[in-house]
């Protein structure tokens, strides 16, 4: 009875309900928790970048304290965005092959182009232009390996003249303007991977890229709120309430927009009631009850909407400490809710049979490549990278150039 197949039959068969094709009889769906993390992490990148461009492009001055933190957050998460895919596919030593033989014929292969564009042409360049003057200054004062790192990052350009700094600011702003559609492309693309699957009624939907990018913006802003508050707490500093209130305001409006479009999607599905509707109803009621109704709708949307909405109305009456806690709580709830949303999309789309008359089950394991421990490690890794980035580039020890990104027309005095 130790035969693998016998175990599959024993363990899996009771998890099935209704009509399930024999070829769907596998203990796990093809895409597991790693594929849940992939759109989640990518969304956080896009959202954190949009958050940064609020300062750079839209001149939202109260958000200046989190401008660099948001960009570094985007970078830390972007560096990990491909890891879930890589681990899921296996054979990570072959990862270079996608770069060596690029092509346009599959949506998954397109990610190489989208990713390379976003990382190399947008995020790294914008960060470099923003930090160039600081790198020059820090390379003069810092010694040891830090000095070597900063000197290397200057790329040998030590020009700090007004004209050069002005050009940096202009280039940064230009890249940020390019970056907004790029961020939409990056995450809209991830939604497109699912939305373009015609045969699956849970996925095949033109609203999918839009829902993905909106939830990405919400989760990215929530992550910036989380990171900013944790960073100030670790540094024993006080949170700038003006900045936090503004972040809370943008988080609220983004969430309103996101919730409205997601509700529109559901109203659309309910009204059309196409052939897959019954099984989708069953999924929402039974199989995905905890992640969809509790996780996504209640924790991820309704509660934060109420809390953040109330804070918009009665901000002045709520003491700062309570406000900080409410913002932090809402950010954490939104981060959980968006993770639940990615789970519902990725796993939900694989839990019902192509017959539309039966459902499969999925029990997340602890160990193994597709286990939740691995997922936790992959979720923790960007935070570890972010700590290194913050220590290197947001250190309190190092003086910053003092120029503010939005005033590109009036550069501050160099040095």
């Amino acid at each position, binding site marked *: 009875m130790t035969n693998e197949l016998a175990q599959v039959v024993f363990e899996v068969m009771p998890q099935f309900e209704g009509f399930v094709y024999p070829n769907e009889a596998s203990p796990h769906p093809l895409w597991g928790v790693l594929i849940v993390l992939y759109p989640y992490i990518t969304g956080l990148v896009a959202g954190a970048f949009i958050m940064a461009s609020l300062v750079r492009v839209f001149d939202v001055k109260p958000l200046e304290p989190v401008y660099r933190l948001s960009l570094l957050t985007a970078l830390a998460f972007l560096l990990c965005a491909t890891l879930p895919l890589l681990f899921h596919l296996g054979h990570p030593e072959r990862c*270079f092959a996608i770069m060596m033989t690029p092509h346009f014929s599959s949506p998954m292969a397109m990610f190489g182009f989208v990713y390379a564009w976003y990382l190399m042409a947008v995020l790294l360049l914008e960060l470099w232009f923003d930090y160039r003057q600081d790198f020059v200054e820090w390379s003069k004062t810092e010694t040891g390996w830090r000095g070597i790192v900063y000197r290397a990052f200057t790329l040998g350009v030590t020009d700090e003249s007004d004209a050069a700094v002005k050009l940096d600011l202009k280039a940064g702003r230009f890249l940020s303007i390019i970056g907004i559609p790029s961020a939409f492309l990056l995450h809209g693309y991830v939604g497109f991977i699912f939305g373009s699957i015609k045969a699956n009624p849970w996925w095949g939907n033109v609203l999918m890229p839009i829902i993905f990018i909106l939830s990405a913006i919400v989760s990215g802003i929530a992550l910036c709120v989380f990171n900013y508050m944790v960073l100030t707490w670790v540094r024993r500093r006080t949170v700038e309430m003006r900045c936090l209130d503004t972040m809370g305001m943008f988080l609220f409006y983004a969430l309103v927009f996101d919730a409205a479009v997601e509700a529109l999607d559901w109203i659309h599905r309910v009204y059309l009631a196409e052939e897959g509707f019954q099984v989708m109803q069953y999924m929402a009621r039974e199989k995905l009850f905890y992640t969809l109704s509790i996780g996504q709708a209640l924790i991820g949307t309704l509660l934060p909407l109420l809390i953040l909405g109330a804070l918009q109305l009665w901000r002045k009456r709520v003491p700062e400490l309570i406000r900080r806690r409410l913002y932090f709580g809402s950010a954490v709830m939104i981060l959980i809710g968006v993770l639940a949303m990615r789970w519902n999309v990725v796993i939900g789309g694989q839990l019902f049979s192509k017959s539309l008359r039966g459902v499969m089950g999925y029990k997340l394991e602890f160990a193994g490549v597709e286990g939740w421990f691995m997922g936790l490690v992959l979720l923790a890794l960007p935070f570890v990278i972010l700590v290194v980035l913050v220590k290197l580039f947001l250190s309190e020890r190092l003086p910053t150039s003092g120029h503010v990104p939005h005033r590109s027309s009036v550069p501050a005095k160099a040095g």
Partner: protein
Amino acid sequence: MASSRESRFSLPPQILRLVLLTIAIVAVYLVARYFLTPPSFGQFGFYRGDVLQELASLEPVYAGKKACEECHSEQYQQVAQAEHKSVSCEACHGSGQAHAEDPDVKMAILGFSRCVRCHEENPSRPKWHKQINSRTHYTGEKCTECHLPHQPNEVP
């Protein structure tokens, strides 16, 4: 006049460095691509051309029904007249090329899983196909205690 024209056309230092860096990255990429792309890639299509030869030269692991018949003609005749006649020997007994070449190499031991792979209850299977629920049908180890796989309708 000449100097102003010069300054108009000179690239700012940081942009120049970025352009050089970009050229360097692209050059490294092209060199890496030259060395890391397999030589036969794209010979017939978007894949490594050599792979066809490599796959064709793999040793077959299945021997086929005819090879079984050479020594096990009695069992072969039994199966040929019974309901499992369309099922290949190796579908239940496992791959047999090694055994066919050298009878001393033993075949895999048959397990219960071979039967339930086709006969486990599933509403998607046609009604005429005999199905059981392995949890309630029999809790013992061997299907062959009650069934003869070569003659499924006979009783042992």
